[in-house]
């Protein structure tokens, strides 16, 4: 049976692998957005937990940790029942960690790692970077130095000498101290404190309240009570009553560190008192094979909790959508949309008048520039010429091949409007980031590139420019009718002129047909003129209605263009940050749950 499977593979919901993955997600998302220490610790946990879960689950790594002189090495010897570690009177004693491998019962007697999942104690010990290794084989075998031993082989232990109840499937580590003047010891010890599955803190009556132990090691391990044991060593130096008092005090101090439920076992390496109880405790832990998972879970939970707290309160749903309409309004104003809409209306009127106006006065309108053209949004002059338009070719329209490269001559939104854009974006971000932690708010702010907005807005206006629309057909019809009416009037006028000339020359007046009482030439001349003017007026009214409709269409197009810009340059970058925030928080929450 593979240890990994026993501890729940990645498929198990809420299992260690999934939690580690969640924590890894949270770390990735939180990069640079939370306190660097929290982030680094969480990243450490992710790396370490992943490595530990990949290694053998058949072995529980039990570390004897503690201060110098607390009797870690003596306790190790007492536990194993053999002189594997060498205690001394000179401080600090143990400089290099020492491993005692207690193979699982199924394993070969010589301690050779089984095939199994391919990760025996060897890989585990390599990962722990412990080179002093001893193997205590199953019952009937002796303590034997492993192949990579550095020390002289200890005397073999006789069968009878092997204590019963020795844990199986465990690696016992005798660690250097963490509090002596030799700084390297501390580095080695701290590395293994982080990697061991079950930490047996060996304290003694002299040192159990040292600041170094509690502030630096036990307090950060709050929440790890399941994988900690406090072994109060050297109880032979105390009277039985004192032992009770000290054990109670150790519990009190541990509770103060946030380790209320941690077992406190009084032991004496010298007399052997309590060693059996400790051995049984370790054997039970090794038998259940849960310590590795429990340690990883405790680490991941602690790191996830710290990360979640760093992410602040849960985000309110839909926050990024808040304030978008106000943003679009402000961007519209800054992009000059009202100006363009108004110009569109007037330009339509202008063009309608040029086509449908009374031909006699039509030219007056031509003296004015097309309002849209003045904004650089009119038709390209070449297009106009193609259509036979007689508009001035030198109108200040910028015609280039690419629509995208065109720029309007709208007033540059560089100053006043640019300022308004900035203010609008800031207001939007304020609304969207309500409740977000400061770091994420700042990140969302810097994710929005305000400098790119004016150009993008200009492009959007050009792209949805109204110039592309075809003129209504009735314009041309009215135009033709206007010329026809003018022609009629001209015919009438000419006729009247001829009649006048004949009269002037006293020639006989031809018979002039009449329409009722009124002669036809008069009817033609006056009627043509009057109808032309009337038609122009009617067309103007109709064109006004059409112009307003076109303006409304343009307004819709422009608004959607501006909205696109707002989405692309403001809302999306900000939302990405905010989504990362909520995703990070959710992942941390999953890891910590």
């Amino acid at each position, binding site marked *: 049976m593979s240890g990994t499977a026993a501890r729940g593979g990645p498929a198990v919901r809420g299992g260690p692998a999934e939690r580690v993955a969640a924590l890894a997600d949270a770390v990735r998302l939180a990069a640079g957005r939370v306190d660097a220490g929290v982030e680094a610790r969480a990243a450490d946990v992710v790396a370490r937990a992943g490595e530990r879960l990949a290694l053998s689950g058949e072995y529980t790594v039990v570390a004897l940790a503690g201060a110098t002189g607390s009797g870690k090495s003596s306790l190790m010897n007492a536990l194993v029942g053999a002189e594997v570690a060498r205690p001394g*009177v000179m*401080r600090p004693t143990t400089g290099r960690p020492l491993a005692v491998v207690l193979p699982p019962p199924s394993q070969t007697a010589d301690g050779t790692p089984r095939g199994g999942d391919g990760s025996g104690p060897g890989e585990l010990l390599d990962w722990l970077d412990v080179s002093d290794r001893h193997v205590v084989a199953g019952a009937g075998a002796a303590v034997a130095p492993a192949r990579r031993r550095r020390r002289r082989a200890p005397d073999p232990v006789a069968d009878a000498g092997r204590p019963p109840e020795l844990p199986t499937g465990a690696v016992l580590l005798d660690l250097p101290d963490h509090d002596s003047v030799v700084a390297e010891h501390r580095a080695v010890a701290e590395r293994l404190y982080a990697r061991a599955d079950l930490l047996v803190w060996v304290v003694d009556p002299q040192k159990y309240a040292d*600041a170094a132990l509690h502030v630096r090691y036990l307090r950060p391990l709050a929440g790890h009570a399941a994988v900690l044991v406090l072994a109060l060593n050297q109880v032979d130096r105390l009277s039985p009553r004192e032992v009770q008092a000290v054990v109670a005090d150790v519990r009190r101090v541990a509770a103060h560190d946030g380790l209320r439920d941690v077992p406190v076992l009084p032991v004496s390496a010298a007399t052997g008192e309590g060693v059996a109880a400790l051995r049984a405790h370790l054997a039970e832990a090794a038998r259940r094979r849960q310590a590795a998972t429990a340690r990883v879970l405790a680490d991941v939970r602690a790191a996830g909790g710290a990360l979640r707290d760093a992410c602040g309160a849960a985000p309110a749903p839909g926050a990024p959508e808040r304030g978008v309409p106000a943003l679009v309004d402000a961007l519209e104003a800054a992009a000059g949309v009202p100006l363009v809409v108004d110009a569109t209306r007037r330009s339509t009127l202008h063009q309608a008048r040029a086509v449908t106006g009374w031909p006699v006065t039509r030219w007056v309108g031509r003296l004015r520039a097309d309002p849209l053209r*003045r904004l650089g949004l009119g038709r390209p002059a070449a297009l106009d010429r193609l259509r036979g338009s007689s508009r001035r070719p030198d109108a200040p329209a910028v015609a280039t091949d690419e629509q995208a490269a065109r720029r309007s001559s709208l007033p540059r939104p560089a100053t006043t409007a640019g300022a308004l854009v900035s*203010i609008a974006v800031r207001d939007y971000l304020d609304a969207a980031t309500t409740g977000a932690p400061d770091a994420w708010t700042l990140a969302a702010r810097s994710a929005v590139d305000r400098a790119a907005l004016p150009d993008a807005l200009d492009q959007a206006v050009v792209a949805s420019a109204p110039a592309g629309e075809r003129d209504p057909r009735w314009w041309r019809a009215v135009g033709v009718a206007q010329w026809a009416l003018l022609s009629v009037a001209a015919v009438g006028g000419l006729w009247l002129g001829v009649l006048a000339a004949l009269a002037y020359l006293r020639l006989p007046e031809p018979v002039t047909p009449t329409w009722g009482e009124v002669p036809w030439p008069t009817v033609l001349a006056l009627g043509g003129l009057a109808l032309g003017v009337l038609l122009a007026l009617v067309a103007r009214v109709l064109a006004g209605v059409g112009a307003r409709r076109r303006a409304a269409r343009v307004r819709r197009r422009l608004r959607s263009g501006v909205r696109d810009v707002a989405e692309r340059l403001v809302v999306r970058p900000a939302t990405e940050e905010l989504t990362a925030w909520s995703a990070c928080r959710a992942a941390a929450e999953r890891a910590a749950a």
Partner: protein
Amino acid sequence: MSTSDAPRLVDAIVDLRQALDAVALPLATPSAAPAALERRRLLDQLDDHLLPRLRDPDAATLVVVGGSTGAGKSTLLNSLLGEDVSTPGVLRPTTRSPVLVHHPDDADDVDPARVLPGLARVREHEAGATPGGPGQVAPPADPHDGSDERPGARDGQDGLAVEAQTRTPPRGARRDPDAGAAARGRVLRTVASTRMPRGLALVDAPDVDSVEEANRDLAAQLLRAADAWLFVTTAARYADAVPWELLGEAQRRRTHLALVLDRVDVGTERAVADDLARMLADRGLAGTPVLVVREVTLEDGLLPEPDVAPVADWLTDLALDPAERARAVEATRDGAVLDVAARSQEVARAADDQREAADRLRAAVTAAYAAARTRVAEQTSDGTMLRGEVLARWQDVVGTGEWFRRLEEGVSKARDRVVGAMTGRRAADPGLAQAVGHGVTALVVDAAEDAAARAHADWHHDPAGTALLGGLALSRASADLRARAEEQVRAWQGDVLELVRGEGSGRRATARALSFGVNGLGAALMVAVFASTGGLTGAEVGIVGGTALLAQRLLEAVFGDEAVRRLTRTAHERLDARVAALLDAEAARFGAVLEPLAASVVDGGPLRSRAVLVESAARAAATAAGVAAPKDPAGPADERAGAGTTGLAGSPRPTRAGRDVAAGPGLRGAGASRRPRGSAGDGASHGRHAAEDAEPAGGLRGWWARVRRGGRA
């Protein structure tokens, strides 16, 4: 000569103390926290040790018994006194408030005014005793009322004089120093004992590595106040890192020091003591006496007399041998003076860091808002304001936009039309004023927002600044800025009209001005202001340039060239001033956070120079003492005192030398280890490996020794 040196040194140190006191470290620079701690320690050291010691070189020698938790300090102290003055126990940490033990005759020497003035005093007295005046001696009483431990140790003849004092705290705190300490901070219990040699005061300090931070700090403070250290460690602990940090400090300060290696298992004494001696030598403390006390079964809670003998001897020598005492006190003091001077330099550097940080933070704000001001000034004068809305409204003022375009060719032709527009007293357009107000407000607000964001970012990246920010409030402009900016812009428009009116009241201009209308001219002036630097480019000149030119010509026609230039400049200056006032108010928000703290920041210069003065005064004094030393008879202290040439600050009082053990029973075990060897003067070697065979003698509990000897025989 040293008589004049001493006061000089004292004065220099008093000056240094003042300078040190003046240093404030309110900003969270990287150096602030350690320096604040250092400053506190230096002040404590000056008050607790150096100043009292320099002012009164003859005061009782203060020996602090310091060490690790569980090292057995209290047991050792009790064993030395043969009395239960400090409560030992198996629960850690044990000694929670320090105990000062002194000879009753030395009560004045350990008066709070002279020793450890920072600590509140509790003199133990019997329950129900009326607190009396200072120095009033209450009847001897059992200090251990309510204590159930070791009733056999209550021994009236040990002479524990228990006194009441006006400073006595409420009775509840007496046997519960924890509660007292929690309520009041730090408390020192004083106990007078005739066991103590005169001229010697022992302080039982809390653990240097206690889990209680307050205990650790107090222990370090007491050790810094000591004339000599009796540093207690154990066979299990002697390689601990924390005590060695303190020992390193002792080495740096050349503190007079002895190590007690306590709780050594029988049989391992030599190996452990040698190892410790090697470690001491490695760390520049070679020659430090190592006094070994074995792990033995306590008798009535006290160590057997022979076991404490080396410690008792060391202390007794320190108290009674004037040469030894002077050497110890002076070495410690001189080392401390130089150490204080050197460490003051670090505080001075931190003070400089504070000043720099304050300047840097101020400069960041100033730069951000100066940039904002410049930007607004540029944007309101380079013509870019004349685009968009303002332009459209101006065109409304001068006529139709369509016509206006055609006026580019002939300004004079246009003027007629403009004049026509103006003379009609056409209300000069709330539209233009509004557009201008709107535009300028937006510029100011945007600039202020950018400045706030920039200053915030600068502070955010500065450790000292981050601590001040407290959230993102400062990264945005203040909420009412827009309203204030609008108000200011309206006020500026009023200014402009005022200017035009004032200029128009001149003789020649009046008539013409009246014909154009104040409002129209005001509008023209605003337009002229916005284009006053003429930073226009390319196509814009067509529209904007024309606009501005028109306004310019119009104004020139009315007021004349010179006046128009002046008006434009004045109007712009007024706008600038109003914008500056707005931005200054914004910048003041940062100042409001920074200045209350930065105001107290002082330069490190005075402290540095005073530290140098102290150092040179100390060296001068040391040189003087060194010159005098050869002449110094090593013998009678009276002569030395008469010559007045020892050390930095005089010499011990002659009376000190006259003291002898007869003043009291003396410390338990004093002389016990020496007697058999018959070498009383061997200060360096005595006590090493407290011989099991040492012959205990003397002291009140000599019976025990006799019993033991008898048993062995």
